[in-house]
């Protein structure tokens, strides 16, 4: 029983990271109807920048506070420079750019930082596990950080004018322009936010899986499974899906398929969702009169 609770708790912790990346995927998907395959590699690269800063003697949270806005800027620039000219291009052109970005970030990271696994520090201390030994300090800390990020993003979209304008620009760009919303700026903002969320997820997962240029490939797959499971059209659904996948992954890995086959469960979830309920658990079928 203790083992199960332990798996459940660490499932929630890694689920939080999948939820963050799933949210980043869904944000860009909602605005552009494309899945950014490079989301994970961008996060990995941000994490390397953080490590470089920390190794240069910058305190962890200062490095965090530098990397998040820098990632935001890079994300927004990628949208402005690479994606905006492709706004009217066929889907495959965008997919090509996403895969190109994935390869570029991966190779450049390998070139600069080498492919060897590197330990990444946790800001939450290495001490004894908390809560009767069920949860490590890092799992608890990263879950709190993830929840703060997710709640802030939700509040931003729900309660601010810019958040509303971003949703409007994603749903109906033509009408948005007519009420004065600068749609291209909103898209750049969305890319920036997605990159910033990814950077945080990268920094939270790196102490667990160690940092290397392929660190996020597994995470991205779980996140994608989470987004699909919750419904790729629904940010809240994607977040819940991310947490569910984390829990399924940990418990399934411990009791059903074994750790070696954990990643294949992500693919299994993807296939089952697509066959049984393509809209996902919370993907809403919109009601509209014509």
């Amino acid at each position: 029983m203790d083992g199960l609770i332990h798996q459940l708790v660490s499932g929630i912790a890694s689920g939080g990271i999948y939820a963050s990346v799933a949210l980043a995927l869904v944000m860009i998907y909602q605005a552009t109807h494309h899945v950014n395959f490079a989301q994970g590699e961008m996060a990995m690269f941000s994490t390397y920048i953080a490590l470089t800063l920390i190794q240069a003697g910058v305190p962890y949270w200062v490095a965090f506070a530098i990397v998040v806005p820098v990632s935001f800027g890079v994300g927004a620039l990628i949208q402005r420079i690479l994606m905006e000219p492709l706004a009217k291009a066929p889907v495959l052109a965008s997919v090509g750019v996403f895969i190109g970005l994935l390869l570029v970030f991966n190779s450049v990271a390998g070139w600069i930082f080498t492919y060897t696994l590197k330990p990444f520090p946790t800001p939450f201390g290495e001490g004894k596990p908390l809560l009767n030994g069920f949860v490590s300090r890092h799992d608890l800390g990263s879950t709190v950080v993830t929840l703060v990020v997710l709640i802030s993003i939700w509040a931003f979209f729900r309660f601010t004018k810019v958040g509303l304008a971003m949703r409007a620009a994603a749903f109906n760009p033509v009408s948005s322009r007519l009420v004065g919303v600068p749609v291209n700026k909103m898209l750049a903002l969305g890319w920036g936010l997605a990159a910033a969320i990814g950077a945080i997820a990268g920094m939270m997962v790196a102490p667990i899986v160690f940092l290397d240029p392929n660190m996020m490939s597994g995470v991205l797959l779980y996140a994608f499974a989470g987004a699909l499971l919750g419904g790729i059209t629904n940010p809240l659904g994607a977040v819940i899906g991310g947490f569910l996948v984390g829990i399924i992954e940990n418990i399934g890995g411990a009791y059903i398929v074994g750790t070696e086959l954990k990643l294949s469960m992500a693919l299994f979830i993807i296939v089952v969702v697509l066959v049984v309920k393509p809209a996902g658990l919370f993907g809403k079928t919109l009601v509209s009169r014509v």
Partner: protein
Amino acid sequence: MPTLLEVVGLHGAYGESKVLHGLDFVVEEGGVTTLLGANGAGKTTTLRAISGMINTQGEIRFAGERIDGLATEAIARRGIAHVPDGRGTFMELTVEENLRLGAYTRNDKAGVAADMARVFDLFPKLHERLSQQAGTLSGGEQQMLAIARALLLRPRLLLLDEPSFGLAPLIVREIFDTMERIVRETKVSILVVEQNASLALAIADRAYLLETGRIVMSGAADDIRKDETLRRSYLGY
């Protein structure tokens, strides 16, 4: 009356196919101007050209300044609210969020609140449905929402694209009555495009008749309404 919008030699095209062939017209401050014409005459395209949604040649002056070539959102910011064909409802958002988006360009909270109250006075149905998903509204309610959303920009010029389209006669009557009220009670000028000429002429001061991208006739709305030959040959009623 002073001129608010002046269009000179306006050409417009969708890609290769030219739709507007050199239009000249004006919209006077404080009045209702209507563009009439059959399907495909270029009415919607003219409104899109004013809002910078298509590539154009020629001059468009708003309040004395050139606006042709500006981005759509910049034109909206200058005070032109456009109710597009199909109404442009944000289907996935609530009625309230649709209205808040209408006021996106404004920062005067008190003014927005006052205008919000005003559109509820004009369209009480919207107030009852504030938290409802806008996509579930009926066609007439969506048209009301679209006009309310446009008014919240506090525009100097309101562009309306076929407000009667696809609606039951009773609802159309209601919407046109409200439009008359808006003109009476506010300083907003309206450029309305309509296939239903008799409706539009009843509330308009000035009318232009569009045929295959050219203006073939213009004049005071009353004169056109009274001229039976004209009405029969061009407007078909």
